[in-house]
């Protein structure tokens, strides 16, 4: 854990704290249907035209059921739109590599994955997706799934802030305004910056480079039908082949990567995601990508404080998030810097840490920080391969996802996830002192706690249920890249990531099979929509309540006591749900690594 790492961590925290308030204030204007921004002269006419084409009356607000229904129908239409593009990729334009259509299960998995802001990828981007599929089929959801998440969070905050109110805003207005006024302008600037660091943005076919030093490889001999030729001993016949070319990936990458990060989508253009030198060319591009992952989620806590007229509460929620975040960063950094004792015994330098799956330009610290950021938010982009992390280093991203990604969290999803924990924390505090719990002047009653618990139980059930199922199924075990406890971790990570709408992976798992594609698709749908519906019900219920003036018995939702109670609630529920499963995966693997046991 070198000094340079501490300096970079301090820089990151200062930058994040500095953008939180301006972002929150801007969100306040964007999420107010009549809010003014300096972009109005350019975007105002476009906004009004969009409403007219949609047949939407922007001044008409919706109750929680109408709001949720609009969101669900919009998601369904978008999902079908992307499914169609992926299935018809071979006959659509902008496909210079001549890539074929996706199989039905892969197209389903991918369409669901991007609709739900997960961006789980069962495919290899550069050999599967045409430029049109990337730029339209996938990037479309990078924008609108993020906007939908922010809309839901805004609706919940309105429910908390309003009293005796039936409506929570208009979904269409929130969707359009967030996309136009927040996401597009930032992405435009960010994408151009990324190109300045070396990210590609073109429509050329892949470039062939002539290698400086050609080399020979031995590959399995194939017959005319593409089948492997077996020798008399039943083993594949090997032939020598000279490699003298390098095929270099091209395409409209920068425009997509900007929104991939800002919208906490995380779906890589290339297979190696943000580890790929084109997709994350420099440490500065890396720094700003990490910052953009947290930007909106962090700003939303300030927005919460403003709208509920309790700024101390907004900062308390932010403080709880940062406490959990820093604990994760330090644990992951420490584990990766300590390295793998098995490899160190073989002769790997002690001071270098665990470099398997990491890039030299980022080093140990930036890889550990990125892994924690991307799983604390529900982003899922990776700049190092989590599968090759040490046992405890890999435990941090996995546990982050299982806590519900409430540490800043996905754009929108993080805040509404955290507010569920706030409701529970207030409820628990109320039980401890024997009073009816109150949250910002509103009585938290049985219905509210039921809805909050429902949204949490759904996640736990999906993650553990699916993992239990695959770990005893033939098709599940066939996809593993690692044996022993690490194999269980691969499966547990996959369904945590899918359900948590994260999208990162222990990527050794071969998930592009009909069974994995379908079950992961279902896990993603459960994790997104079965969480949103109870949360919107909670928002509707809170909005209708009356506000009682604070009394001596009111539990304050700011200050250190509240932060500790909130962090405790998050950790307690996470630990109760997932410690047994984690003990069989990364925790036992840690002790086996220390003993030098291999699988």
């Amino acid at each position: 854990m070198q000094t340079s790492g501490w300096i970079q961590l301090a820089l990151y925290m200062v930058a994040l704290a500095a953008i939180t308030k301006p972002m929150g204030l801007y969100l306040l204007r964007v999420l107010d249907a009549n809010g003014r921004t300096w972009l109005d002269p350019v975007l105002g006419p476009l906004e009004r035209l969009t409403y007219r084409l949609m047949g939407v009356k922007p001044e008409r607000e919706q109750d929680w059921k109408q709001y949720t229904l609009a969101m669900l129908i919009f998601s369904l239409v978008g999902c079908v739109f992307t499914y169609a593009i992926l299935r018809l990729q071979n006959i659509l334009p902008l496909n210079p590599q001549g890539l074929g259509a996706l199989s039905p299960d892969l197209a389903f998995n991918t369409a669901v994955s991007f609709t739900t802001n997960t961006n789980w990828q069962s495919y290899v981007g550069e050999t599967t997706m045409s430029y049109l599929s990337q730029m339209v089929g996938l990037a479309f959801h990078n924008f609108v799934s993020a906007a939908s998440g922010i809309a839901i969070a805004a609706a919940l905050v309105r429910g908390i802030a309003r009293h005796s109110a039936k409506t929570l805003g208009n979904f269409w207005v929130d969707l359009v305004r967030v996309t136009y006024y927040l996401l597009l302008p930032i992405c435009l600037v960010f994408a151009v910056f990324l190109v300045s660091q070396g990210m590609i943005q073109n429509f050329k076919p892949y470039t062939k480079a002539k290698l400086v030093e050609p080399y020979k490889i031995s590959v399995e001999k194939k017959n005319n039908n593409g089948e492997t030729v077996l020798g008399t001993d039943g083993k594949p016949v090997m032939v020598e082949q000279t490699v003298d070319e390098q095929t270099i990936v091209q395409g409209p990458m920068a425009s997509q990567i900007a929104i991939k990060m800002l919208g906490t989508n995380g779906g890589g253009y290339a297979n190696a995601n943000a580890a790929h030198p084109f997709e994350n060319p420099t440490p500065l591009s890396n720094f700003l990508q990490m910052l953009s992952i947290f930007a909106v989620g962090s700003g939303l806590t300030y927005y919460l404080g403003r709208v509920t007229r309790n700024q101390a509460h907004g900062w308390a929620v932010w403080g709880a998030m940062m406490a959990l975040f820093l604990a994760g960063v330090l644990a992951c950094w420490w584990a990766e810097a300590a390295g793998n004792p098995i490899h160190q015994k073989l002769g790997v330098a002690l001071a270098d840490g665990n470099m398997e799956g990491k890039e030299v330009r980022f080093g140990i610290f930036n890889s550990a920080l990125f892994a924690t950021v991307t799983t604390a938010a529900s982003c899922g982009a990776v700049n190092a391969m989590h599968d090759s992390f040490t046992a405890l280093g890999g435990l941090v991203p996995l546990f982050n996802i299982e806590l519900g990604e409430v540490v800043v969290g996905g754009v929108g999803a993080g805040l509404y996830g955290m507010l569920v924990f706030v409701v529970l924390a207030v409820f628990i505090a109320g039980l401890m002192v024997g009073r009816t719990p109150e949250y910002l002047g509103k009585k938290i009653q049985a219905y509210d706690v039921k809805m909050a618990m429902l949204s949490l139980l759904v996640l736990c059930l999906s993650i553990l249920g699916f993992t239990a199922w695959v770990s005893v199924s033939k098709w599940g075990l066939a996809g593993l890249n690692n044996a022993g406890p690490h194999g269980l971790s691969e499966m547990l990570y996959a369904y945590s990531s899918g359900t948590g709408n994260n999208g990162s992976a222990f990527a050794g798992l071969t998930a592009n099979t009909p069974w994995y594609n379908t079950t992961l698709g279902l896990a993603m749908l459960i994790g997104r929509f079965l969480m949103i519906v109870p949360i919107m019900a909670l928002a509707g219920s809170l909005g209708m309540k009356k506000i009682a003036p604070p009394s001596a018995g009111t539990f304050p939702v700011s200050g250190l006591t509240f932060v500790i109670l909130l962090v405790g609630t998050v950790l307690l529920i996470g630990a109760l749900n997932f410690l047994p499963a984690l003990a069989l995966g990364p925790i036992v693997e840690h002790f086996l690594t220390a003993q030098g046991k291999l699988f």
Partner: protein
Amino acid sequence: MKEIISHLRGAVMSTLVLAAVCCGLYPLIVFGIAQTVFRDRANGSLIVGKDGIVRGSKLLGQNFTGEKYFHPRPSAAGNGYDAANSSGSNLGPTSQKLSDAIKERIATYRRENGLKDTDPVPADAVTASGSGLDPHISVRNAELQAARVAKAQGQSPEEIRALIRRFTEGPQLGVLGEPGVNVLRLNLALEGP
């Protein structure tokens, strides 16, 4: 029912309009600016020889095995440094396969560079990167290879070390990231101008 139909119209129209703006207009504006202001970078930072032939990209590693070249990190991308098939090994900490591979790479690295059997080997020299395309090796790794390369190239170790310093990139802005030596650019410089 009437409500669902009105939502459907909103959903279909907003999908079309937002797709046109976010997936048509926006990437084209970025494309236009990128190709005007950062033409070289937007097209892959390609290294083009005097004969006009593309030799690679400044940002992407290439495979080298000959003793007169600096060797990059091991790669799990396709058959090694396949820049249309980026990938890490994804092998975990208790993987027998990974452990065996590292053991063999350490032996090879020590033999090639004249190290003793007890000398520690830089981690980046024997582990695959996440992308399989890492253009860099650590400065320590490059220095350990310098003597071998100098001998094979018939140049003095000082000249080679000067080249290593020239192609050492980072930390960016003095603080961000780790320093690394760009192997492809270094090896091309060894080939001469």
